[in-house]
């Protein structure tokens, strides 16, 4: 039982990182109808920003702060203006294909421009271990889970309780009505992209000490985050959180009790089951359109 609990808690920590990336997926979808298949690379790039900044002698927390600003500029503003805006009028599919191309370009750009080798990254949380009723819990897992959940709660609070957040939600629900009501729709969409960039940078800070900074670190992470978003409900932010946690926990349990070889298949399996029986996701709402 103690082993199960230990795996469960460790899985929650991993799942909370997936949840951050999955939340970015759902926010972008809700605000702009964009599915960003470069989301994994959006986590990889801030990781390398921090590696470069750490290499120049900056402490970790300063490197993180600077990488957030750079991420908002590059992964928020530049991504929106350079890729999404020009293709928006052609529908969803060109944007999807373009983001797939972007992910390949980002991966190979980092590999060729920086290095194909993994880069060291400092631990964010101390190497302490706590024994709670026989269950070993690391400070790293607790810190990762708490930090990620805090970010999710703050994001939710911003969206629900601030004027700007509610304006962003209005744009997500009905762009035309929001525009008629005087909401600056392009600015609200940009804010969504900016929040996604911040969440990606935070995910990078939490995941890179374990994954190590490598050009392909985002591949698996992006795929699992996408599955997590679908599992939880692509049109529900809380669903992204639930999906991420489910994937993280189930992966860990599968690796321990079945085989490590099946670990990566767990997310896909759950995804297929959910798609078959509840296509809108566990917490998502059915969307209907009149034709």
């Amino acid at each position, binding site marked *: 039982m103690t082993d199960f609990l230990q795996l469960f808690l460790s899985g929650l920590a991993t799942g909370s990182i997936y949840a951050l990336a999955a939340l970015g997926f759902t926010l972008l979808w809700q605000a702009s109808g964009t599915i960003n298949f470069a989301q994994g690379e959006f986590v990889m790039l801030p990781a390398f920003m921090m590696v470069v900044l750490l290499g120049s002698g900056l402490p970790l927390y300063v490197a993180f702060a600077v990488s957030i600003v750079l991420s908002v500029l590059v992964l928020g503003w530049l991504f929106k203006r350079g890729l999404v805006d020009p293709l928006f009028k052609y529908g969803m599919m060109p944007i999807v294909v373009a983001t797939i191309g972007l992910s390949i370009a980002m991966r190979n750009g980092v590999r060729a421009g920086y290095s194909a080798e*993994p880069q*060291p990254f400092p*631990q964010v949380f101390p*190497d302490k271990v706590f024994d709670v009723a026989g269950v070993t819990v690391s400070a790293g897992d607790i810190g990762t889970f708490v930090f990620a959940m805090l970010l999710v709660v703050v994001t939710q609070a911003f969206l629900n309780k601030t004027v700007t957040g509610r304006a962003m939600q209005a744009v997500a629900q009905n762009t035309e009505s929001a525009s008629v009501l005087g909401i600056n729709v392009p600015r609200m969409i940009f804010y969504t992209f900016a929040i996604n960039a911040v969440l990606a940078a935070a995910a990078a800070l939490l995941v890179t000490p*374990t994954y*190590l900074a*490598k050009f392909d670190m985002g591949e698996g992470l992006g795929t699992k985050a996408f599955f997590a978003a679908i599992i939880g409900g692509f049109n529900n932010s809380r669903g992204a959180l639930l999906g991420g946690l489910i994937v993280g926990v189930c992966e*860990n349990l599968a690796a*321990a009790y079945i085989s490590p070889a099946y670990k*990566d298949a767990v997310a896909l399996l759950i995804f297929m089951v959910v798609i078959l029986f509840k296509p809108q996701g566990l917490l998502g709402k059915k969307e209907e359109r009149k034709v």
Partner: protein
Amino acid sequence: MTKLMEGSATKVVADISTDAGAVDFSAAVLKAKQSDADAIFIVTNEEESARMLREFRKQGVKKPLIGETTLIGQKVIELAGDAANGALGHVGLTVEAAPLKAFGAKYKTEYKSESDHNGIKGYTGMYVLKAAIEKVGKLDRKAVAAAIRGGCFSAKQTPGVLMDVCFDDKGDLDRESFMVEVKGGHQVVTATLPPLNAKK
């Protein structure tokens, strides 16, 4: 390895495999803890070794972590950081060994990084080849290969080989090697092992 251990005082209590390219070793490390082994022998590639060492540290495992050249290699030490400290292993070559310290210092001056065993192998390999070519007197592939097989090259006569080395008739080399422990981010030689076929 399990077969080699049969009949010895060492009993293999668990054999845990991981997926190639794995990034999360929490389940594997937990299984290792559950096995209650006295020591853990790790064989993975460089990245995986670094991640595994970090996971062992994260889960508070205090048992000896033992490996081969890769586990306690310089790249793994760099990637794993403090988590590599305490790891033990056998290495054929290390810049921390007395005969190789001068090479290590020159390498660091030139390339601004520590050489691992690959750097030393590249260097000494070229000098073995040079010595064999000089022995044969011509660039004949078969003759040079034959000169290496079954031959010995001493560091005194060929300083570039850095350590005395012999080759058997199959081309496998035989020379001193080292047991090391990682301390403070560096390999520290704890014992020197004689060549397998050392004259007693």
